[in-house]
């Protein structure tokens, strides 16, 4: 070994041991030494020799540092193989050092490190482990140490118990005694976790009853006892990440670790169970369940009586279950289960399972339950029932349910002893004539009996369902409860029917309705071999429930309950594949429910009809398919009624159906598969409808219907595969060719619609109703196309859409935008996207913006002459959508489009005094120019904002990442220079509008990055735009941007630089009269500004306070409240003068 590392590590040792070096230095030096050791540049032996002086000196501090260094190094070398001699001599050293209380910490660390070593890298031997344990027990006073060392001690103990069991076994009593001593009186949560685990391990070490643990079980438990129930309110901090639940669980494991604790544990828990603290009760019940299972039936036998009485107490008398007043009850009584109740029932279940017969007889023989069941007749009237009575009923119901669910034999017993009483109370009779519904039964039943009956039925069903083995199911069928139930089922059904009939006529208590519907549902969903009800009865049940859905929609509770029951039955039928029941279900429920879609019954609200159809439809694909076909049929029938016969009354209804189709049905199929076929057939179907109608005239109602149809069409198309989309597209084109007048004559490229119309002798503005429908639907198809879909005859289609958009048809514009966004760059050999776009822009759009600029070939158009007769602001809007499509895919042609907008905005033609908002513009041509330029400004909004209608990921648009930021970065300098150059006020106004749109739609990060340049322009925006009421929305969005800049750290710097100007503008906005949110936000901005460095804002303090004081008298309350807050913030700057 050469000398360099030697010198190095000596320095490191010195630095670690020295008390003058900082913590970071110490950590660095220990890391360095550990690295040397790991890479074998230094042997452990050499190191120890070198350190001899530190390890044996009489100076306590240096010695403890030295030992700690060795211990820590061993911790870091846990996975490095070490020789046996090295390990044994080190172990001997540390074992000996345990007696050195002045330098204990290092010894503990070293011991732990050596004890934790794994096989394969050199472990310590059993005898050494035993020696450690002996030295530990002899010399360490754990509880007198600090928290850190205590934790280490306990970790050593845990490690010994966990990994060196054989070595410790022979220590016997000494070990147990030592542990008792070590853990007594601990309070730190981390140490407690270890202690609980140690006790658990100790119990595993001495499992037999007559071991050393027996003598100390009492003492040991006394130590643990005081921690129950865990009450842990440790404040949250980073180093203690132990939760109450973890502690509680660890203690529970310790409690249940050995049956030797049983004589002390159970009385303690029973005692705590009777405490008035709810959390103590819950904990006791939890522990009881766990311990009972662990200790086993024999040991628990003697407690059953006292346990039952304690449980009964918890279940019956504790008023913890709260009565909820909601209209939607959890169970028939409307109780929310309390935590105590849940835990108690769980415990009851454990007990019933463990002591089957003996415990059951306790419950059966219980006086309270018997008396309660015998007292039914006293409480006949539901209204007179007290909450206390209901609570008791609730509890008894649950107790019996638990007994039934435990096993078949307990179920038998419960039925044999209790069912007859219920039968009496409900006046049931054994009926052999299955399926005959008696009508003459009085509907006034005893509620208690009814409730219990339903609870018992539900529990039986759960018993059957949970024992899913066929063999055991057959055994169950022969059981007595099954036979009892079987003989009464008809009679029970009659009771339920009777109740339902009564509730249809008059208003019955919801609790009755709930019980009746629930009862029917349970009877109908008993699995196969337990046909408690005959087929006839089953069908009767279905009929009844279905007819409720059809006719009782005014009784909300009944209706909802019936719907829920049907959903459950449907789920059941699908799950258990019972052919006979499925057949009945299909023939009765499916048909009727599905026919609700097409029913003409106008009494029942459409939303309820659809709710019923879908809730049941969601349970199975089969059902959903028939729903879809019915829906489709109805929609197309309605459409032909409307379109052909002009029946307008159906428009609203059909729109509802379409909405439901696109919002519910298609998404469901999208998730569950099969969306492609469904949507293909829907789309084709709609176009077929269009094909057959020739004359169409719809007015206001038509708009809504058209909107819904388009939405459904788009939704359907997004779900379609590429092939299906091509089919639909072809169909759409076919329909257009036969029906639309655009296709009927030769379409000449480059002609506009106006010329075409004159050719055909049409003079009206806009599209005819029929054309609008066809084109709109076609546009919807195009909007949702996938990029891979082949489009036939693309030139013609572009031409067509361009023409309709000039008529102001927005969907056409959106479709064009989608097309240029998605078309491949090379469409075919003789046709590229670039060429197509050129054609589109040159021939169709720019002609309408500026005529007489023939020299312009594909470049942006300069606004040389705006006074043209064919100016068309629709063209600008269309151009905006096309621009959006180009922008999103990042196409270079975007430049031409934006340059056109810019040149529209900056027209040198205006006189400089023509204010856009004065009404004196009489000249229609001037008005036209004005609206064109306005559209150009708004175009930036269209280009930048996200649209729901098209060009989003949902409609398969191509979206380049960060396209907004990119566009902003390109456009901003252009705008800045244009604004700087512009000397006409009108143009300026338009430029600011456009810029405001651009900025407010750009992600804030990008704006903040350029805040220095943007901020002055934004301030001018406020100044200029705030003069006109029509710009209030724009101002608001810019204000939002400003507040965004204000909350950003970099943005704040810019604001500080421009503080006087910003404050001046904001002061103006605090009294902006046209929009409340603007005033509010302006004041909020002031609030944020009060945090800026005082030196910068102090000079403006007086002005701001004056403005805010004025705002205190704002007509709107929200503004006033903001003003009060803001005023306080500003008044407290630099002085607490309250005279403001």
């Amino acid at each position, binding site marked *: 070994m050469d000398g360099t590392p030697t010198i190095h590590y000596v320095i490191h040792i010195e630095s670690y041991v020295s008390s003058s070096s900082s913590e970071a230095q110490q950590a660095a030096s220990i890391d360095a030494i550990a690295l040397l050791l790991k890479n074998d540049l230094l042997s452990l032996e050499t190191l120890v020799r070198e350190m001899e002086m530190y390890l044996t000196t009489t100076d306590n501090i240096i010695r403890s540092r030295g030992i700690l260094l060795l211990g820590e190094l061993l911790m870091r070398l846990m996975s490095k193989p070490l020789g046996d001699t090295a390990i044994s001599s080190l172990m001997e050293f540390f074992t000996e050092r345990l007696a050195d209380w002045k330098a204990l910490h290092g010894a503990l660390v070293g011991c732990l490190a050596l004890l934790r070593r794994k096989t394969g890298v050199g472990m310590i031997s059993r005898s050494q482990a035993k020696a450690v344990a002996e030295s530990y027990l002899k010399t360490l006073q754990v509880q007198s140490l600090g928290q850190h060392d205590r934790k280490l001690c306990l970790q050593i103990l845990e490690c010994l118990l966990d990994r060196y069991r054989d070595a410790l076994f022979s220590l016997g009593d000494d070990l147990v005694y030592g542990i008792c001593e070590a853990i007594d009186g601990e309070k730190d949560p981390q140490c407690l976790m270890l202690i609980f685990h140690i006790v658990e391990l100790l119990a595993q070490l001495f499992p037999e009853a007559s071991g050393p643990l027996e003598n100390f079980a009492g003492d040991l438990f006394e130590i643990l006892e005081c921690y129950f129930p865990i009450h842990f309110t440790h404040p949250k901090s980073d180093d203690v990440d132990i939760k109450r639940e973890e502690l509680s669980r660890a203690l529970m494991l310790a409690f249940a670790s050995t049956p030797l604790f049983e004589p002390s544990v159970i009385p303690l828990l029973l005692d705590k169970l009777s405490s008035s603290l709810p959390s103590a009760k819950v904990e006791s019940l939890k522990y009881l369940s766990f311990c009972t299972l662990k200790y086993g039936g024999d040991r628990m036998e003697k407690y059953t009586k006292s346990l039952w009485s304690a449980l009964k107490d918890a279940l019956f008398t504790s008023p913890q279950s709260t009565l909820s007043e909601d209209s939607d009850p959890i169970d028939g009584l409307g109780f929310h289960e309390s935590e105590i109740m849940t835990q108690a029932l769980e415990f009851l279940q454990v007990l019933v399972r463990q002591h089957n017969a003996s415990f059951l007889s306790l419950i059966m023989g219980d006086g309270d339950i018997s008396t309660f069941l015998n007292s039914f007749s006293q409480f006949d009237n539901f209204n007179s029932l007290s909450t206390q009575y209901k609570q008791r009923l609730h509890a008894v119901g649950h107790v019996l349910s638990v007994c039934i669910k435990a096993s078949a034999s307990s179920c038998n017993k419960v039925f044999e002893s209790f069912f007859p009483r219920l039968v009496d109370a409900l006046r049931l009779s054994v009926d052999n004539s299955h399926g005959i519904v008696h009508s003459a039964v009085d509907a006034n039943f005893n509620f208690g009996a009814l409730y219990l009956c339903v609870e018992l039925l539900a529990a039986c069903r759960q018993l059957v369902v949970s024992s899913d083995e066929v063999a055991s199911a057959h055994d169950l069928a022969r059981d007595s409860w099954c036979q009892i139930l079987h003989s009464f089922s008809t009679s029970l059904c009659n009771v339920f029917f009777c109740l339902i009939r009564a509730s249809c006529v008059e208003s019955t208590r919801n609790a009755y309705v709930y019980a009746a519907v629930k009862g029917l549902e349970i009877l109908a969903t008993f699995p196969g071999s337990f046909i408690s009800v005959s087929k006839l009865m089953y069908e009767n049940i279905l009929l009844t429930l279905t007819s409720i859905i059809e006719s009782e929609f005014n009784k909300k509770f009944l209706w909802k309950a019936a719907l829920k029951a049907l959903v459950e039955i449907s789920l059941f039928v699908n799950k258990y594949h019972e052919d006979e029941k499925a057949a009945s279900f299909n023939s009765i429920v499916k048909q009727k429910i599905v026919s609700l879609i097409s029913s003409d019954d106008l009494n029942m609200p459409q939303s309820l009809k659809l709710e019923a159809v879908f809730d049941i439809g969601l349970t199975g694909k089969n059902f959903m398919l028939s729903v879809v076909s019915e829906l489709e049929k109805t929609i197309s029938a309605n459409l032909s009624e409307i379109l052909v016969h002009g029946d307008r009354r159906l428009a609203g209804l059909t729109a509802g159906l379409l909405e439901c189709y696109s919002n519910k049905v298609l998404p469901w199929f999208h998730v569950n598969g099969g969306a492609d076929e469904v949507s293909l057939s829907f789309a084709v179907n709609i176009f077929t409808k269009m094909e057959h109608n020739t004359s169409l005239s719809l007015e206001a109602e038509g708009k809504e219907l058209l909107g819904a149809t388009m939405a459904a069409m788009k939704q359907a198309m997004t779900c379609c595969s590429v092939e299906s989309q091509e089919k639909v597209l072809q169909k759409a084109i076919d329909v257009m060719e036969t029906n639309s007048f655009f296709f009927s004559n030769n379409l000449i490229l480059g002609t506009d619609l106006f010329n075409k119309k004159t050719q055909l002798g049409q003079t009206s503005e806009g599209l005819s109703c029929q054309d609008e429908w066809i084109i709109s639907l076609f546009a919807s198809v195009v909007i949702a196309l996938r990029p891979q879909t082949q489009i036939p005859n693309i030139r013609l289609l572009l031409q067509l859409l361009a023409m309709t958009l000039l008529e102001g048809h927005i969907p056409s514009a959106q479709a064009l935008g989608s097309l240029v966004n998605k078309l491949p760059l090379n469409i075919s050999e003789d046709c590229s996207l670039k060429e197509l776009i050129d054609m589109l822009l040159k021939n169709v759009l720019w002609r309408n913006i500026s005529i007489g600029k023939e020299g312009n070939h594909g470049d942006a158009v300069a606004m040389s002459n705006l006074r043209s007769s064919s100016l068309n602001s629709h063209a600008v809007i269309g151009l905006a959508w096309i621009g959006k499509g180009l922008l999103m895919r990042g196409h270079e042609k975007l430049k031409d489009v934006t340059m056109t907008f810019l040149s529209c905005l900056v027209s040198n033609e205006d006189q400089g005094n023509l204010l856009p908002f004065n009404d004196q513009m009489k000249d229609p041509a001037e008005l036209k120019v004005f609206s064109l330029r306005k559209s150009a400004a708004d175009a930036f909004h269209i280009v930048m904002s996200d649209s729901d209608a098209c060009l989003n990921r949902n409609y398969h648009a191509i979206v380049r990442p960060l396209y907004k930021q990119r566009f902003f970065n390109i456009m901003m300098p252009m705008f800045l220079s244009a604004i700087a150059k512009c000397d006409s006020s009108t143009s300026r106004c338009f430029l600011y509008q456009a810029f405001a749109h651009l900025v407010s739609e750009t992600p804030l990060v990008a704006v903040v990055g350029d805040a220095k340049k943007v901020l002055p322009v934004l301030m001018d925006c406020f100044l200029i735009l705030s003069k006109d009421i029509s710009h209030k929305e724009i101002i608001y969005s810019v204000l939002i941007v400003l507040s965004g800049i204000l909350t950003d750290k970099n943005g704040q710097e810019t604001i500080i630089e421009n503080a006087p100007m910003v404050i001046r503008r904001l002061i103006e906005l605090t009294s902006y009269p046209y929009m409340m*949110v603007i005033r509010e936000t302006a004041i909020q901005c002031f609030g944020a500004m009060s945090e800026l460095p005082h030196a910068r804002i102090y000079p403006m303090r007086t002005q701001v306070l004056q403005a805010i004081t004025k705002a205190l008298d704002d007509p709107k*309350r929200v503004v006033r409240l903001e003003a*009060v807050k803001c005023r306080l913030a500003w008044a407290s700057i630099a002085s607490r003068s309250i005279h403001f």
Partner: protein
Amino acid sequence: MVSELINANPVVYKKKERRDRGARTVLDEYAAEPIDQLEIFDHIRDIKDPEHPYSLEELKVITEDAIDIDDQRSYVRVTFTPTVEHCSMATVIGLCLRVKLMRSLPSRYKVDIRVAPGSHATETAVNKQLNDKERVAAALENPNLVDMVDECLAPSYA
């Protein structure tokens, strides 16, 4: 400062639920919403009692009903009830109320602060002191008093 609390063990009442003013969507942009009782109450309910960590609302020193307001005539009167009759804190509470309203209301308002009749031993004196402009101004020149007032007004509910 007083070494002993004047009312060592006051009754603490439950806070009234904060009434929601309904949806924030403004139906009519130009409709005026005049200042009303609840708005004034919202301003002063969270003022801290000078000697207890409770708000004036919790101690029922002020209630919503004890506020009279006439927005047209720009007049508001707050009547407060000290917890005990001989409460020497009554003037401080009154001062807090006045300062808070001064800071929160438009300058057109005239604010009148009164002790509820029969609830205080030196009722007239306190009323006179609280509504004397010059004495209020003088009180606010006293740094100790201003500190005390500011502590009570420190927004406890963010």
